[in-house]
């Protein structure tokens, strides 16, 4: 069914464009809450790209962790620090122009490199089906050491976060 | 005492309520809602709501003499009375205007208590609606007047007591008239008898 495939292909490009628009929104909006919402939209779009790349498990994890947890955390932080209805202050510093110029150079350089490199794309890898079970086996077999390290980092981050964010105990009344 | 049993106890209570609402009579756990427009609770006899005027046989023989006592005594001042004048401009001891503003009336029953002519009584009417608040709820004399039969129907005990009393005073007056016919009574109504409302 070539029509459906072509439609899906252009759909993917459309999703990419939408992600880039939302990403621009993330870095340009003055209101941080809108930035966070754009980030959520961009992350959901990325999950769609993951599905296109046949990484459904990663897509679900992406939505679960990024949209469900990280964006929520960020919004929490915004709510706790911003003044709700107050005027938003100037959000950008004076490096804007410099950054744009530098990044344009960076992007053109890397893009030409990417286009000129003959990528070793293998048709067998494209056909290969990766299952959630294989992922779990790899996680518990080959990559068990980084997995454990990650869990230690998570514990450390958990404790550290609690310690940092905790209010100091009120001083005892004399 | 197992942890969490209170939760189940509470749930059993609501479950029992749920089931009994289908099977039981209203007095032991069933639904006691009255589906109002179709089903009605019987209005008890001593229920009193909004005053009305009693006439005897015909609407011309209204008991009210427009003395204005109720108008004075009414706490929210919802009664307005004007006495009728005959062609010569003499007061006729009949009300020309008798308005009760149901929007103001607070159903105290003071008018019923103070009326010396057994004329104004509290009604059973509670479905009083009007399309508009200020004028619509003002009841004029024509709608306020209700026959003695109606009074007998809604509050039989009080109505028959009042009738007996009026009959007794009529008899007494007749007897007095028979004894001394010379001075004609100046008024159509009897001497204001001190009435007991109950």
């Amino acid at each position, binding site marked *: *069914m070539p*029509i*459906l495939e072509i439609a899906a292909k252009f759909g993917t490009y459309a999703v990419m464009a939408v992600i880039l628009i939302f990403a621009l929104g993330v870095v340009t909006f003055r*209101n941080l*809450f*809108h930035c966070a*919402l754009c980030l*959520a939209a961009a992350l*959901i779009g990325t999950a769609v790209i993951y599905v296109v790349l046949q990484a*459904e*498990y990663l*897509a*679900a*994890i*992406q*939505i*679960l962790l990024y*949209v*469900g*947890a990280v*964006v*929520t955390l960020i*919004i*929490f932080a915004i*709510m706790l620090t911003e003044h*709700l*209805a107050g005027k938003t202050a100037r959000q950008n510093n004076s490096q804007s122009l410099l950054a744009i110029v530098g990044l344009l150079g960076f992007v053109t350089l890397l893009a030409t490199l990417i286009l000129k490199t003959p990528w070793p794309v293998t048709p067998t890898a494209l056909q290969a089906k990766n*299952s*959630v*079970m294989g992922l779990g086996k790899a996680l518990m077999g080959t990559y068990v050491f980084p997995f454990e390290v990650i869990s230690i980092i998570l514990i450390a981050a958990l404790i550290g976060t609690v310690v940092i964010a905790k209010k100091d105990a009120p001083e005892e*009344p004399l | 005492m197992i*942890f969490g049993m209170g*939760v189940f106890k*509470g*749930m059993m*209570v*609501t*479950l029992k*309520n*749920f089931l009994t*609402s*289908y099977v039981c009579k209203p007095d032991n*756990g*069933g*639904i*006691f*809602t009255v*589906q109002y427009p179709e089903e009605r609770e019987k209005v008890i006899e001593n229920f009193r709501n909004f005053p009305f005027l009693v006439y005897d046989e015909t609407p011309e023989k209204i008991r009210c003499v427009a003395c204005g006592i109720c108008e004075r005594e009414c706490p929210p001042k919802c009664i307005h009375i004007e006495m009728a004048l005959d062609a010569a401009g003499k007061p006729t001891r009949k009300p020309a205007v008798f308005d009760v503003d149901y929007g103001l009336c607070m159903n105290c029953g003071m008018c019923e208590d103070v009326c010396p002519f057994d004329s104004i009584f509290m009604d059973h009417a509670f479905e009083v609606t009007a399309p508009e608040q200020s004028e619509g709820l003002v009841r004029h004399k024509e709608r306020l007047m209700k026959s003695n039969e109606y009074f007998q129907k809604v509050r039989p005990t009080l109505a028959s007591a009042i009738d007996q009393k009026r009959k007794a005073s009529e008899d007494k007056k007749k007897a007095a008239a028979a004894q001394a016919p010379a001075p004609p009574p100046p008024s159509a109504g009897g001497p204001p008898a001190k009435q007991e409302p109950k």
Partner: protein
Amino acid sequence: MIRSWEFYVDMIFVTAKAWILSLLGRFLPDWIVVLASITISGVVILCLGPVIMMYLTLLERKVIGRIQNRYGPNRVGKWGLLQPIADGIKMFTKEDIVPANADKIVHLLAPIVIVVPALMIFLVVPFGERMTAVNLNIGLLFFIAVSSVTILPIFMGSWASRNKYSLLGGMRTAAQMISYEIPMTLAVVPAIMMSQSLSTNTIVLAQTGDFDLHWFIFTPWGIVGFIIFFLCATAECNRPPFDLPEAESELVAGFHTEYSGMKFALFYMAEYMNAFTLCGIAATLFLGGWQGPFLPSWLWFFGKTFLLICVMIWFRGTFPRFRVDHLMGFAWKFLLPLTLINILLTALWQFTSNLTAWLWSILILGISLWILVKLNRTFVPEKRHYPLES
């Protein structure tokens, strides 16, 4: 091949769809048939969601009424069956009020966005044999991921309203939903472990057995997992006794204080559709989904789901609202350790599934419950003595 009439009753919807598609396939190209197949499933789900929501409100009002010794709504139509339609008309004709200082676009987007995850979860719910809209191989993870997105529109609505009650309600919702998502996800893990799959269909198929009654709930870990999952599901869709986000007595209506008319109805709709899908997933995971003797599969599924919804309504009719600190403590200090112990029990069951395992499970559960209750006992602070008092 001759099949019994029961098969045809069971497959009535599947056969209907296949018949329509074959009819279309006679004179249309293949890709239109594929699109038509997607459209049929989508339209069915899009219609099913709101209809279920409407009649759930009616069911809830009826049952709550009976619990409180009242008739529920019974004026519009026979037994009040048209009441949801009357409510819908009322909602449509209400004025749409937007606060003057509100963030207009986000305020508009929030109720629209909240319906999307609620409808998307319907995709992976197996309504009957071969009646899953999309048989994803990560179905359960999809469900967890999509249901976690629900926090976002609630935040949007609460923030855009510029109202302190909305903001407090939104903060509470986020805290509560994140907290209860963790034990919910962990309560699902035993079912995944035993069926060795994330696909909802495969999980249902793993529960086949004699009389189709080999459900996961008839195992020690199944009971514990089911209870934890169901409690977390009740908290996830903000239903009483976990309705802190919209606690009327303190927050007016929580995050949807500033919404009226159809926007409010959309929030309401999302809540009820979430309740339905969460009950459906609970039935799928632990009550055998569409498995069951004698009756057609879709009837079994809807029966189980509505039973669970009735239990939710029963909760609402029974329990007063939690206190915020109790709510969070319940999730983190009680349900979370219990789910971890439950995963241990599942591992035990994987190796020995017999009476001994039952006894061991009950022993472990009893001890851990006792310890948890002891550790969670309410802490009564010492009475403070201030020097000025004496």
